[in-house]
C-alpha cells in the first residue's frame, strides 16, 4: 500500500459516511445526504444500503450498467416513486439537513427538480411550459421576467424569444430538452436531478446541454444519471458507480476514472461489461 493511498484511506475514515473522498472534501457542503437507503419494488430489493453525499454546487454523476438502479436512486430523491403502488424504501434522505419525508412532497419537488430522459414538454406554448411551475407554486413576481431568466439560463432564450407563444412541439428535440431544463429551472430549485438527459440527442445538442449544465452549477446542485462514461468524465466533479443496486465506488471523477479502487469499477469503465 502506497503512502498516498494510506493517507487517503485515513482521511476517508474520518469523514461521515457518503462523503466523497478526496482533497477539499471536508470543505464541501452536502446539499443532499443519503444514508442507508434500501429500496424495494414489492418483495424485490432494488437498492442496497446506499450512502451518498451530493455536494452543493457541483455536478455528481451516477454511472453503471442499465438496470443497476441509478434511475431508481434518482427518483427516490424527489419522491417520484410515490406514484407507484408497490414501491417503498427505508433509510434517510436529507435535503439541507431536513428529512425529505418531513417536507410536503410538492414543496420538495419544487426544491428538487427533475429533467427526464426523453423531453416531455406540455402541449402548451413555450411560454406556458416555462411558466407552469411558477403558476402552480404560486409565484408572486413577474412571470415574464422569470420565464426569460430561465430560458436564458437554459441557453434557449435567443432561439425562442420571438416565438414564445408558439407550441413547444414545434421545437427540435434538443431545443425541447433545453425547454424542459428551463421549465425545471424556473422554480429555482436547489437541486436538479437529470435522468440521462442527453441519451436521446445528437452530439451537437449533447454538447450544448453539457455546457449549460456546467454553467448551472453556480446556483444549483446537479445529480446526473448517465450511461455515457465519457460524458461523466467530461462534465462531473464527482462520480458514483452503481452496480446491482449497490454503490461500489464514489470518488472525484478524475480519480475514479484513472485509479479506481474496486476491480468491478475498473471492469466497467474499461468496457468489459455494461
Amino acid at each position: 500500500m502506497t503512502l498516498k493511498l494510506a493517507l487517503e484511506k485515513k482521511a476517508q475514515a474520518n469523514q461521515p459516511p457518503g462523503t466523497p473522498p478526496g482533497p477539499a472534501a471536508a470543505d464541501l457542503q452536502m446539499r443532499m445526504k443519503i444514508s442507508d437507503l434500501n429500496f424495494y419494488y414489492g418483495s424485490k430489493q432494488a437498492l442496497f444500503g446506499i450512502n451518498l453525499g451530493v455536494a452543493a454546487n457541483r455536478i455528481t454523476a451516477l454511472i453503471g450498467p442499465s438496470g443497476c438502479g441509478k434511475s431508481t436512486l434518482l427518483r427516490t430523491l424527489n419522491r417520484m416513486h410515490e406514484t407507484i403502488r408497490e414501491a417503498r424504501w427505508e433509510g434517510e434522505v436529507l435535503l439541507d439537513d431536513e428529512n425529505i419525508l418531513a417536507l410536503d412532497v410538492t414543496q420538495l419537488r419544487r426544491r428538487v427538480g427533475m429533467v427526464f430522459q426523453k423531453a416531455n414538454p406540455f402541449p402548451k406554448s413555450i411560454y406556458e411550459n416555462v411558466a407552469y411551475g411558477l403558476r402552480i407554486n404560486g409565484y408572486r413576481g413577474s412571470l415574464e421576467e422569470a420565464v426569460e431568466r430561465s430560458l436564458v439560463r437554459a441557453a434557449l432564450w435567443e432561439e425562442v424569444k420571438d416565438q414564445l407563444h408558439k407550441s413547444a412541439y414545434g421545437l427540435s428535440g434538443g431545443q425541447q430538452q433545453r425547454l424542459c431544463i428551463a421549465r425545471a429551472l424556473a422554480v429555482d430549485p436547489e437541486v436538479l436531478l437529470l435522468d440521462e438527459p442527453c441519451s436521446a440527442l445528437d452530439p451537437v445538442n449533447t454538447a450544448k446541454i453539457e455546457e449549460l449544465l456546467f454553467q448551472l452549477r453556480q446556483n444549483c446542485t446537479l445529480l446526473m444519471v448517465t450511461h455515457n462514461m465519457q460524458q461523466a468524465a467530461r462534465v462531473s466533479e464527482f462520480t458514483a458507480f452503481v452496480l446491482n443496486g449497490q454503490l461500489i465506488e464514489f470518488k472525484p471523477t478524475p480519480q475514479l476514472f484513472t485509479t479506481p479502487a474496486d476491480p468491478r469499477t475498473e471492469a466497467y469503465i474499461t468496457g468489459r461489461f455494461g
Partner: protein
Amino acid sequence: MNFRSSWRKIVNAAMLSLTGLCALVAVAALFFILGYLVWHGGKALSWDFFTRLPKPVGEAGGGMANAIVGSAKLLLLASLIGLPIGFLAGVYLAEFGGRTFAFLVRYTTDLLNGVPSIVIGIFAYTIVVLPMRHFSTLAGGIALGVMMIPIAVRSTEEFLRLVPRSLREGAMALGASRWKMIATVVVPAAYRGILTAALLALARVAGETAPLLFTAFGNRFWSPGWGQPTASLPVMIFTYAVAPYEDWHQQAWAAGLVLLGLVLLTNVAARAVLSRGMFVHRS
C-alpha cells in the same frame, strides 16, 4: 392452368364482387336517405317553418318554431346533467380508480348504455312526471341526460388514458399535486377528444324520440320555463308522419331534413376534428 385453379379464381372474383356489393348497398342506403330528404324536405322548407307555430289541426301552414326551441332547451338540460356527471366519473375511472369500485362503475356504465331509450323514458316518467303530475321539459331533459352519461364516461376515460405518462410525471416533478396535474396538464391535453365526444353524444340524443314521448310529451304552443310539456323536432316528425294530413307530411320532411342535417354535420365535424390528432399546436 387446370380447371380447379381457374374455378377458385372465379370464386375469388365473385366473392369480391358480392361482398363489395353488400358494402355498396349499405353506403347507397345513406345516400338514398339523404337524397330523399333533401328532395322532399327541401321543397317544404321555408322561413315559416323556422319561425311559425303549428297551426290547428286541419289548417294548412304553420311551422315548427316551438319544436326547434323545445329541442334546444331539452338538449341544453341534457348536457347540463349528462356531461358533468359523465366527465367527472370518467376522470375518476382514469385517474383515481380503485380496482373493485372502478370495475363496478364501468360495468354499470356499459349496462346503462345498452338500455333501450324507451325504457329510459319510462324511468324519467316514474321519477319526474309522476311526482310532478304532468309532463315537462325537465323530465325530457333528464331522460336525455341519463342517456348521455354512459357515452360521456367512456369517452372521457378513453381520452384521458391516452395522455402519456411522461406528461404526468413532468407535471408532478415540478411540484404539482395530483389534482393540479389532472386539471392543468392531463385534462387540457385531452380536451379536444373529450369535447368532440360530448358533441357526438349530443348529436346522438338530439335524434331520440322514444324517451320524449311521455316525458316532454308535446305542445302545440310555446313552452315557457322548464315545467311544461314541450314540442321537439323528433316527436313532431313522428306525429306528423303518421297523421293523415298531406300538409303535415310535408312539414315532417322538412323537419327530418333539418334534424338529419344537424346530426350528420355534427358527426362529420366531430370525426374530422378527432382525426387531426390530440395534441395540436396552440399558436
